[in-house]
């Protein structure tokens, strides 16, 4: 393709999330084929789960998969889990939107301004690896133990992947695009909105994808620590009530939810970044 040689370096050099998500680069038949193989693998693992619980592993904490499925359809469980998941997803999405919004805004600021970058990057690097449980006690002192605290924890977890990716994307914006905006005498605000943000979207989406998976995990962990709602609380309660079938029912639903969330964001990404993927192929 004509433009390949000149456009290569406008693309993100690394897409860290791709490997983790197992994106299949090829198109057509091979994708379909590997998807079937993937499904078979999941079915095989579920079968192994069933067999291991029936014949090899004798523990109250390891019920056969069939019992987990039955628990899911028991009267009341499905309905309860619906509300449990609704509460968690609401918390997660609130934290995600706040964290991602802040991450993008700060990422743009840091990406554009060298002074800010040098001032803030040590702090970012110090805060970034903090584990959620370590974050909770000081946050309880500041924000109590309700949604404000848990939402903050989720937003905090979401913030850094988005911020770092955004800043990287902003710095990688093709200088010619910025010069083009300048020669048309577009101001700072229009340059950011019309050029820098769209051009950084491939990076921003990488951050968003990592963060979305993280947000779900952190939401569940936060709910395990405090509060009477959500998946995390349900998991804890069922574990302590020795109702492992219900617990795994929630775990299975959690896995499905995670898969669905990723599917959604990848679909949105494919749509929004059509121009980007089309250039790559």
């Amino acid at each position, binding site marked *: 393709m*004509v*433009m390949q040689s*000149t*456009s290569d370096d*406008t693309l993100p050099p690394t897409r860290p999330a791709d490997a983790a998500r197992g994106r299949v680069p090829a198109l057509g038949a091979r994708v379909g084929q590997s998807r079937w193989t993937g499904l078979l693998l999941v079915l095989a693992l579920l079968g192994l789960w069933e067999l291991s619980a029936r014949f090899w592993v004798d523990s109250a904490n390891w019920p056969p998969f069939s019992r987990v499925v039955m628990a899911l359809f028991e009267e009341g469980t499905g309905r309860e889990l619906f509300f449990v998941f609704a509460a968690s997803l609401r918390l997660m999405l609130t934290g995600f939107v706040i964290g991602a919004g802040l991450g993008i805004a700060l990422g743009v600021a840091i990406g554009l301004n060298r002074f800010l970058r040098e001032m803030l990057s040590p702090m970012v690097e110090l805060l970034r690896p903090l584990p959620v449980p370590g974050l909770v006690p000081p946050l309880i002192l500041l924000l109590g133990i309700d949604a404000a605290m848990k939402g903050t924890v989720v937003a905090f977890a979401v913030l850094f992947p988005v911020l770092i990716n955004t800043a990287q994307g902003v710095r990688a914006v*093709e200088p*010619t*695009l910025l*010069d*083009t*905006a*300048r*020669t*048309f*005498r*577009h*101001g700072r605000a*229009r340059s950011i909105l*019309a*050029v820098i943000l*769209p*051009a950084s*979207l491939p990076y921003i989406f990488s951050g968003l994808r990592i963060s979305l998976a993280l947000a779900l995990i952190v939401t569940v962990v936060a709910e395990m620590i405090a509060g009477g709602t959500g998946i995390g609380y349900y998991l804890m309660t069922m574990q302590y009530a020795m109702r492992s079938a219900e617990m795994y029912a929630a775990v299975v639903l959690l896995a499905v939810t995670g898969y669905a969330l990723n599917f959604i964001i990848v679909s949105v990404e494919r749509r929004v970044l059509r*121009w*980007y993927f*089309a*250039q790559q192929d």
Partner: protein
Amino acid sequence: MQDGCTLALDGVTKSFSQGRPEEMMALADISLDVAAGEFLTVVGPSGCGKSTFLQIAAGLMEATGGAVALDGRPVDGPPGGLVYLFQQYTRSLLPWRTVIRNVEFAVEGRGRASRRERREFCMEFLEMVGLADFADRYPWQLSGGMQQRVAIARALAAEPRILLLDEPFSSVDALTRMELHDMILKLWEDRRFTALLVTHDVDEAVMLSDRIAVLSSRPSRIVETIETGLPRPRDRITTPELPRFLELRHYLLESLTKPKDHAA
């Protein structure tokens, strides 16, 4: 439409990494007057600082010394009425925007025209470059020549009084290049903006220009300026057959391949 404007460079110098051991003098004392409505081409060997020269003229880069003035007003940033056509259309078009939205990028934020008015206005320029049917495609769905035509339409939509062209025809094939030459000449003759082109392609320089300035290799200076004196309108078949064309071509190729003889 306003007439073309004048551009004056007076003793412009440019050093990179000034004051450090790796200091590199790119431009040495460049003075050049571009007349209103004139098509002036600066030719020079590869790596002679042609792009640096043009970016300083456009206010995109600061000169180390000297002054640039547009219609007598000093340039200290991209001035109004000036548009820059970049060499690499793939880097200057917005890949997430359709062709028409790329053209609209030139006029966004100007006046309070409605979306529809703006679109209609920009469609005229797409028609001029023959791309009206491709308005809703994306740049990456078009060939290289078509993409550069989008960039040209966008440049003209800004209604420039002076258009700076930074080797805009260098990354397309020979036939496409000729078509683009025809097109730019026609648009220039219709609209009478001032045109300042930099290129290393001698045929292109002779074919398009009223005047040609020859740039030496680094540190660059203007060796001489030549009136082409070729009749207009130019024709892609007959013009290159004129004795004057061949004479200019011969002379320029010689001077560009033996720059040291001239500098001495």
